[in-house]
């Protein structure tokens, strides 16, 4: 079956986004009339959501807060809200400088009915401590809808604004927002490979481990406090867990054989991973609290790459039991096994969307791999990448609207992110040795807001 991308431009405007389905509808009508054969498979869904326009009012400055600080907050907020995929933020200053833009913004805000959403921030800075007050209001009715205060260290300004952005997104759409989320990945440091982490947009990059060994396949805990990864510290690939707040690393599993590809269950109680301790690669689940192991797969073929469904009731994984690697789903206890009916030869690295309706995976292409999405409801697979080089290891943003992946499209391997329909690709790292991205939830431990003593 041929699979072709329904090409849609990167969408910047709520109107354009809305018109996505109109476009596809016309396309559908035309294609059924013109083409008798179903040569073209349409995307199961176009991106149908329009962004909500939200005006960002200039920050009100109190106690020592400077104009510069106020503008910096607005710029971070602006960026965060756009990253949410659901909000179209615009700053008042931009509109005022350009009367045409203001008129357009007003027109844009009409689809939201009689309300005009705006955000007012108030900021004060005392002894390096920032108090940021965010107020979401309806400019038409002049009514405050939500109000919240964020306190933290000056050094953590970005995090404070991220928290505000996620709360705005949640109030307006019910979505979680991704501003507080982070991406961990593997990157080379001279001879060794270490775990790095950065914010969702590639900023604040830092090295999390420095063991001077191979450290691979990071996975986040749901509460954003811990990362599990495979490390060769003992010479054997074992699973380690790193508590990020004190920065402490400890063994999770120390056993014979290879241990890799850990995945934390959505409720945080179990960890699925691959182990060869019984001879060949099988998938195991471990209770976090008592470290009880349960073997989930029983097959002489190689089973790998487990990924939990958002309900925690099922696990999707790769197995070559039919001859070549294919995607299978089983219940969390290892029962009820079935193959995903994807008509592609070599599939691997499944990642279940946090929304539950899609599974991202890679399939082998001439130059390496490309990223596809399997739509569970429609039963169709859609190709998202088709560039030179290889595109691997897809993982989902916590709101399920974006994917991070590693790609060699610019020569060497770096981390990129894109919207789930393949548009809006952004390069996040520039090291040239980055692989296995893992996207965290949008939960951040409260300690991270505080000043470091």
């Amino acid at each position: 079956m041929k699979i072709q991308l329904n090409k849609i431009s990167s969408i910047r405007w709520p109107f354009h986004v809305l018109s996505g389905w109109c476009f596809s509808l016309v396309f559908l009508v035309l294609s059924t009339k013109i083409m008798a054969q179903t040569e073209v498979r349409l995307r199961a869904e176009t991106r149908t959501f329009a962004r909500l326009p939200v005006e960002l009012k200039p920050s009100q400055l109190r106690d020592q807060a400077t104009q510069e600080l106020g503008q910096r907050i607005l710029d971070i907020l602006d960026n965060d809200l756009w990253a949410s995929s659901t909000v179209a933020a615009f700053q008042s200053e931009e509109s005022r400088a350009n009367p045409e833009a203001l008129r357009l913004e007003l027109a844009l805000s009409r689809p939201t009915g009689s309300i005009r959403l705006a955000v007012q921030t108030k900021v004060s800075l005392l002894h390096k401590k920032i108090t940021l007050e965010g107020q979401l209001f309806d400019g038409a009715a002049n009514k405050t809808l939500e109000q919240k205060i964020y306190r933290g260290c000056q050094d953590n300004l970005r995090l404070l604004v991220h928290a505000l952005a996620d709360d705005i997104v949640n109030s307006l759409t019910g979505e979680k927002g991704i501003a507080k989320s982070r991406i961990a990945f593997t990157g080379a440091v001279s001879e060794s490979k270490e775990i790095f982490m950065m914010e969702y947009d590639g900023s604040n990059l830092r090295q999390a481990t420095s063991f001077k060994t191979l450290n691979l396949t990071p996975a986040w805990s749901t509460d954003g406090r811990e990362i599990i990864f495979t490390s060769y510290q003992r010479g054997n690939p074992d699973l380690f867990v790193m508590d990020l707040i004190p920065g402490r690393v400890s063994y999770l599993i120390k056993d014979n054989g290879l241990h890799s590809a850990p995945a934390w269950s959505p409720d945080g109680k179990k960890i699925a991973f691959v182990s060869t301790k019984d001879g060949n690669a099988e998938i195991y689940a471990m209770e976090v609290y008592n470290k009880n192991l349960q073997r989930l797969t029983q097959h002489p073929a190689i089973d790998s790459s487990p990924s939990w469904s958002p309900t925690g009731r099922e696990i999707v994984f790769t197995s070559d039991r039919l001859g070549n690697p294919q995607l299978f789903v089983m219940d969390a206890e290892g029962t009820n096994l079935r193959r995903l009916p994807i008509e592609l030869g070599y599939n691997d690295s499944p990642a279940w969307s946090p929304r539950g309706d899609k599974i991202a995976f890679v399939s082998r292409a001439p130059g390496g791999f490309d990223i596809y999405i399997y739509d569970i409801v429609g039963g169709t697979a859609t190709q998202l990448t088709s560039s030179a080089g290889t595109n691997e290891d897809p993982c989902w943003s916590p709101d399920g609207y974006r994917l991070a992946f590693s790609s060699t499209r610019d020569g060497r391997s770096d981390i990129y992110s894109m919207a789930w329909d393949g548009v809006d690709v952004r390069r996040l790292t520039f090291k040239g040795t980055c692989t296995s991205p893992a996207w965290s939830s949008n939960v951040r431990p409260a300690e991270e807001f505080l000043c470091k003593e």
Partner: protein
Amino acid sequence: MKRALVISVAAHATVLFILWQVGRSLSSPAARGYPRLITATLVAKPAGALAATNEQPAAVESKSASAPAAPKFKPVEKKKEPAKVITKGSPQKKPSNLKPPATKPNLSSSSNPAGGRGAATTKTGAGSGAFGGNALKLDAVDFPFPHYITLIQYRIENNWEPPFSGQQLLATVYFKITRSGEIEDVKLEQSSGNVVFDQAAKRAVYNANPLPPLPADFGLQTLGVHFDFAAN
């Protein structure tokens, strides 16, 4: 013995009746002056509006790192040096601007012919076109959170992909929203007679889950909504 039985039965009946009454008065939203249900209507977009959107240039996935040309969100960290902290009127602002001027004419030209999105989705413009927009009807005039209704309507509308039918259809879906914004008890209240259309309507509701959390000042645990999906 018989008398004791009669007294016992009577006493139990009285207690049960009192409990029932108390329970009813506590759980009845009407008793508190809250509306139980709201009704919103979605109407499919006009075919005329569809044509206007074909102008979109096709571009899947820009292959290079020049992706920042699509300025939906911008890597801020690279601007960390103080010189680049943007202040008003800074020349650096333009390149990193969220809405490059180039796209603006595009927007205005496309929004005018389409019209439907802009005008007809307002409450006032609801009756303006044969198609287009969504008429928002409130059974309860005193639901004091108009912004919330707008938000949920917006969200469900954005998740609705009506099948092409060419007929006049109306399907009503009923559902409840919990305090946290979760959608519960989705039911097809009135079928349009077209199964595909009905399913699209229900799916629009399922896909919109979760909705924004109910307003903090709203006194009840759930809000019931009747949502009309209409194709003209």
